[in-house]
C-alpha cells in the first residue's frame, strides 16, 4: 500500500516520526534557494550545509524574468541569476545532481508556468520525475488553469503538484483547492498581508485551522520565518516550517557555512 501512496506525504510522516522518537520537536524544515544566485557553485555549498544541518526539504527555484509571486529580495535574486546567464538546462542538471548527492533530502522545484511551457510541460514533468524530484511548486498556475500539469503529475508515482493556500482564500475556495492537494499543502501566510504583528499569531492560528478543515495533508507554512521562536510558534500548528528569504539573506551576507549554523539553531 505504501508504495502506491505519493512519495512526499509518507516521507514527511516518517521523518516527523523519527524526530519524535528521538525526543525532538517534530516540525520539519523546508528551505528555499534560487538556482544560479549567486552561482551554482555557492548553491551547492549552501545545499550541503542545509543537508548537514538536518533540513528535510529543499525548494530549488528556477529563475524567471517575471516572478510575480515573489517578494523584492527573491525577485532580485531571480534577475541577478538571469543576468549572469543562468539557463534552465544547467539548472535541471544541477537539481538532478543534488538528488543524487543528498538522498536523505526531498527536493522540490519551484518556478513559474512559462518555464514549463517553454520546455514542454509533459517533457518537464517526466524529466523531474525521472531525476527524483518529489514536488513542483508553480505559484502562477492556479488549479483551475492547471488541469494538464496536475494530471501529468498524478500519472507519476512519486511527483506531487503542490497546492497553495492563502489567508485571502475563502472557505469555498480552500475546499476547492483542498480536493486537489497531494503531498502537502503550502500555506502562504506572509507578514503584512494579514495585518500587524500582535494579531498575527491569532490570525495564523485561525488561517491554519481553516486549512485543516479542508485537507488531511501535511501543512507547510511560510510567513517569513527567521528565528527559533518563529519555528516554535509553528511547531504545534504545522508539519513543516518554510524558510525562504531569511536563509537567502544570511547566505548573501555571511556565506554558506553560516546558513548551516542558522538552520541548526532554528529548532533549538
Amino acid at each position, binding site marked *: 500500500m505504501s508504495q502506491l501512496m505519493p512519495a512526499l506525504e509518507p516521507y514527511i510522516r516518517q521523518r516527523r516520526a523519527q524526530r519524535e522518537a528521538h525526543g525532538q520537536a517534530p516540525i520539519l524544515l523546508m528551505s528555499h534557494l534560487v538556482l544560479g544566485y549567486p552561482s551554482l557553485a555557492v548553491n551547492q555549498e549552501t545545499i550541503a550545509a542545509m543537508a548537514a544541518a538536518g533540513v528535510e526539504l529543499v525548494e530549488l527555484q528556477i529563475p524567471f524574468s517575471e516572478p510575480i509571486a515573489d517578494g523584492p529580495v527573491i525577485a532580485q535574486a531571480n534577475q541577478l541569476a538571469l543576468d549572469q546567464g543562468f539557463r534552465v538546462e544547467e539548472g535541471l542538471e544541477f537539481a538532478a545532481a543534488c538528488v543524487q548527492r543528498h538522498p536523505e533530502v526531498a527536493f522540490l522545484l519551484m518556478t*513559474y508556468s512559462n518555464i514549463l511551457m517553454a520546455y514542454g510541460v509533459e517533457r518537464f514533468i517526466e524529466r523531474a520525475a525521472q531525476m527524483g524530484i518529489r514536488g513542483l511548486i508553480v505559484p502562477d498556475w492556479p488549479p483551475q488553469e492547471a488541469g494538464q500539469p496536475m494530471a501529468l503529475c498524478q500519472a507519476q508515482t512519486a511527483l506531487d503538484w503542490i497546492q497553495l493556500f492563502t489567508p485571502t482564500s475563502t472557505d469555498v475556495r480552500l475546499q476547492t483547492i483542498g480536493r486537489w492537494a497531494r503531498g502537502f499543502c503550502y500555506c502562504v501566510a506572509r507578514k503584512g*498581508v494579514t495585518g500587524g504583528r500582535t494579531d498575527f499569531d491569532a490570525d495564523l492560528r485561525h488561517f491554519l485551522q481553516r486549512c485543516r478543515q479542508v485537507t488531511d495533508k501535511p501543512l507547510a507554512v511560510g510567513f517569513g520565518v527567521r528565528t527559533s521562536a518563529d519555528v516554535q510558534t509553528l511547531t504545534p500548528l504545522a508539519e513543516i516550517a518554510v524558510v525562504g528569504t531569511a536563509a537567502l539573506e544570511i547566505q548573501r551576507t555571511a556565506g554558506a557555512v553560516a546558513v548551516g549554523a542558522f538552520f541548526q539553531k532554528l529548532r533549538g
Partner: protein
Amino acid sequence: MSNGYFGEFGGAFIPEILHETFQRLTRAYTEARQDPEFWASYVRLMENYSGRPTPLTYAENLSRRYQRRIYIKREDLNQTGAHKANNVMGQGLLMQRMGKRRVIAETGAGQHGMATATMAARMGFECVIYMGAQDVERQRSNVFWMERLGATVVPVTSGAQTLKDAVNEALRDWVGSMDATHYLLGTACGAHPFPEMVSWFQSIIGLEARQQILTAEGRLPTHVYACVGGGSNAMGIFQGFLDDLPVQLIGVEAGGAGLATGRHAARLASGSSAIGVAQGYKTFFLQNADGQMLDTHSVAAGLDYVGVSPILAHLHTTGRVRFAAATDVEVVAALQELMQAEGLIPALESSHAVAQALKELPELPSDAVVIINLSGRGDKDIFTIADALDDPGWRRFIRRKAESYSQCEKE
C-alpha cells in the same frame, strides 16, 4: 462577455493570494456591464469632461497627396491628450460603484500614471502611482504633473527598476489593501477581467468612428490603422468594425531598429515570439528558448512591451487583424509628415499607425477610405520627441536652462 479566454489566449495565471481580489473585481465589472445606466453615465462623463465624441478629422492635404480619402480619429484631443483617459475614467466610475476610495496604478513612461492622477483628482480618490526608480529619473515631466495633481509617486527600487517591477509592487500593495483599493491597469493585458474590461471602455472609440465615417462617407472604411503596444487603443477602434469583414484592420507594432536587428517590440508582426504565460495571462511573448522574456526596444515608450493583448493575439490567429511593424526611422518621418501636412502633432506611439498607413497608401485601391487612429498627441512628450528628432535648438535650450539652474543654486 467571456470566460476570460479568447481562443487559447487570456486566462488568469495569478498567485493564489490574488484570487479573491480578481473574483470580486470580475463580479463588479460583470454587474456594471449588465447595467445600461452605467454605460450611459460613462458616455455622459466623457462628453462633459473629455470632449467626446472626439472628431473624425478629414486629412485634406494628405488625401490630396496620396489620392485616397484619409480620416484621422482624434483621440489626441482627450483629457491628458490620449485614449488613456477613456480607460481611467471608466474604471474610476467602476470604483465609485464598488465604493472604493483609493486607486493604485503602475506606470512606465508616466502617461498612464498621469491619466490616473487626473481621474483621482476629479473623483476625490487617494492615488498612489508605482513607477520604476529608473523611469522616475527619466520621465521627470510626468512625475512633476502626477505630484502636482496630488498623487504619491513611489519609486520602485527592486529588480530592474522598470515597468514590470512597478506592476509587481502595485500587486503587492493590492493584496494587502483590496478592501478599499482598486488597481487600475492601464492596458488591455494582464489577467482576466482586465483585457476585456479595458477593451470595453475603449470601445467608445470604435462606436463613434463607425457612426462618423458613415455620416461623412455614407459607407464603411476599407482600412483602419492603429498602433499596438498593450493594445488598448487598437482594441478600441477595431471593435467598431470587427463584424464588418470587408474592413481591413491593421495593427502596427514597434519595429524599433528593424525586425532583423532583434531590437524591436513586434510580437506578432515579427513572427519571432512564442505563446507563453507571464504577468498573469497567456499570449504571444518575445522570449528566449528557456521562456525568459527578452528586452524590447522602441522609440515610443508606450509600445515598448514584451506581451500583447490576448484579444489581439486571438484576432491575429484567426486572421481578422493583420499586424505590421514600423521602424523608428519610418515613425519619425511619418510624425514630421503629418505635422507639416495637417498641423497635427501625433505621439510617437500613434505615429506608428500613421507610418504604416503612409507606406501602404500608394498600393491601396484608388477608392480606398482609410481611418488612422491618432491615439495620443505628441506635444506633451516634447522631451522625447525633441530627442527623436535630434533637434539642435532644443539641446542648446536645455543646456542653457541647466546652466541657469546651477547658477541659481550657487547664488
